[in-house]
């Protein structure tokens, strides 16, 4: 919005501050968007600038900048083996959660697009975990996965499949699998609903025509459904990558990185560095790197997918 408004600015006309120019459309438009622009600058851009400045400064534990520090914060970050491992973990977490979510959400969306009894109920139930906040979901899962009480362990023990409770969050492998599983489960509602919206916009004539031509389910799926929901898939993937990469509540509530940083991702490690340890300099450098990584990904992803969509359209 802001960019559009500024491009409308015509200095020649508005620089002369007279009642008639005040009444001109562009100026009135500008005045209308001014509050929004002011808030966006204050709430979005100011923190980014402050973080960027902090990442190049010596910062005390009250988060006050105490002079220029060059790239010392960044250098500290790249000599920190824990950071490098967590960066790799974060990429793994994002790829696993977004990848599996997308693969699972497509059949869910297809199923919800069929006309069956109780479809409205099924759709409503799928919304429930999405409507609850991520924090609440995470806390519920913390108890579901509890090593002593949990309903999972209780059920497995009653079925005599295990004779000792499994401490899901106790070792790095099971804890890592658990947070990825929860990440997937909370991402599915948004993804399947977006895909469902995409499916509903596919004209049914296409399927009827394909049926006449003798196409089976899979042929229709590969040649009609998938190409036509492609734009929606691009958007959900992009949004999911950004959300999941920055997803704080799930790893924080479930493990806080235990044992020994093995289930940390960048945001939880950043939070520990900044707010537990008071190391705002390296934390700000980490925040800037995260920002740049996601920015680069978003631009690259949009570029690649836009080109391909263009080719397909011809």
């Amino acid at each position, binding site marked *: 919005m802001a960019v559009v408004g500024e491009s409308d600015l015509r200095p020649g006309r508005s620089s002369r501050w007279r009642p008639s120019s*005040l*009444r001109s459309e562009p*100026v*009135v438009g500008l*005045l*209308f968007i*001014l*509050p929004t622009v*002011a*808030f966006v600058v*204050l709430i979005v851009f100011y923190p980014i600038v402050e973080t960027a400045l902090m990442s190049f400064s010596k910062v*005390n*534990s*009250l*988060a*006050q900048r105490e002079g220029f520090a060059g790239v010392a914060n960044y250098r500290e970050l790249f000599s920190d083996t824990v950071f490098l491992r967590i960066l790799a973990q974060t990429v793994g977490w994002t790829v696993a959660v977004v990848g599996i979510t997308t693969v699972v959400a497509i059949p869910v969306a297809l199923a919800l697009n069929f006309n069956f009894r109780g479809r409205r109920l099924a759709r409503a139930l799928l919304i429930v975990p999405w409507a609850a906040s991520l924090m609440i979901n995470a806390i519920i899962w913390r108890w579901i996965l*509890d*090593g*002593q*009480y949990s309903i999972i362990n209780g059920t497995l*023990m009653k079925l005599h499949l295990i004779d*000792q*409770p499994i*401490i*899901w*969050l*106790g*070792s*790095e492998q099971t*804890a890592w699998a658990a947070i990825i599983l929860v990440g997937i489960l909370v991402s599915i509602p948004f993804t399947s609903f977006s895909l469902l919206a995409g499916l509903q916009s596919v004209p049914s004539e296409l399927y009827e025509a394909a049926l006449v031509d003798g196409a089976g389910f899979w042929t229709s799926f590969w040649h009609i459904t998938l190409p036509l929901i492609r734009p929606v898939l691009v958007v959900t993937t992009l949004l999911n990558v950004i959300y999941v990469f920055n997803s704080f509540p799930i790893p924080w509530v479930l*493990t*806080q990185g*235990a*044992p*020994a*940083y*093995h289930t940390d991702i960048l945001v939880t490690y950043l939070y*520990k560095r900044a*707010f*537990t*340890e*008071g*190391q705002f300099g390296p934390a700000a450098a980490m925040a800037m790197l995260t920002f740049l990584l996601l920015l680069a990904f978003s631009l690259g992803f949009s570029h690649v997918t836009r080109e391909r969509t263009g080719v397909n359209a011809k």
Partner: protein
Amino acid sequence: MMGFPFTLRGRRTRPALALALAATTVVALTACGSSSTSAGGGEVQLRFLFPEYSAKTTPLMKTMVDDFNKANAGKIKVSLETAPWDKMHDKLAVSMGAGQAPDVFGYATRWISEFAGLNQLAPLDDKLTPAFTQGFNQKVLGAGTYKNKTYGLPVAVSTRLLYYRTDIFDKAGLSAPKTWDDLMTAAIKTANPPKLYGLGVPASGIEVDTFFNYFLYNNGGDILDANGKSKLSSPESVEALQYLTDLVKRNGSEPKPTGFTREQIIENFKAGQLAMYPTGPWLTAMIKADNPTLKYAAVPFPTNAGKAQQTVSVTDSLGMSAKGAHQAEAWKFIEFMYQPKYRQSFDEAEGMLPELNAVAQSAYFQSPENKPFIDALATAKFQPQNAKFEQIQQIETVAVQKALSGQATPQQALDEATTKINQL
């Protein structure tokens, strides 16, 4: 109903409306930045920030603040603000950074070195009269000193003892553990998994380092030496972590303690699924509320044969901002707060130990269930004053988690911690 600005239409009014909107925004934005310091009438306004220990904290503090305001009507007016404990450091740091620190505030004693180092805490020595200080437990009062100056007065004092289930111990023919050998035997013998585990070992979330300190201190070890260098690689420290690791390996605790937080362990103890767990006096109040039939007692944490008893103890402090404009009035408020009646109701309600001798002598704190905690103050070891303590705690936590999850031997994990601490 909706009048003037909504009903007028046409070109002439739009610029005016736009200007008004813009002006409102600017006013709203600038209003965020300023804060009221003193309202007129010569009345001094003080801001008091106190952490929430439980749902009872705010009403208790409000009663005290109201009493003070009534007694000083027209001269001093204190406004109370409370914040969840977890948010206190952030809240104080942010307000100090912005030059808006409250006049009087509660905080963790271990933050003194950090805040005093940044010239944000007022030293209290010139205000401490013998008449005022003689009412305090002197050892507890000493916890708030840093570099020979007193910065904090004690609030929320606790000592940590080993809670154990008397009924389970009786049935197993065991008595209260005194040495590490007793503890190991009891932990293994009482266990009946998955219904009952021996010693609760929380190795996830907060206070993993504090939990290890029970072992470290009672083996004659320490985190830091007098020069602030790590002592975690010393033989006593390694022996302590080796002991804890062995206890877990020999099924004296839940398997995989890195899957349990302190909160979960406390739930398990209250539910009767743990035979032993060391923690502060608040557990007594929790058991009373949630499972009053549970049979238990609390004893000093066992020591490794022949080593001196050192009780893990934590205090929070009450201090004054060094930047406050009304320090005399702030001190008057602090003196008012330390009347035994206010401290008694606070300590009782929150399950904390008395810092005032008068309160400690009360029938409530001389009862068999509370007295052991007060007696343990004699062997109290408080958290060290080190500006990097929060980072050191994090490093210690990681070392304990590595050893308990088998990623490293106790020696490797603690050597790594020593290297990291000495690089800070």
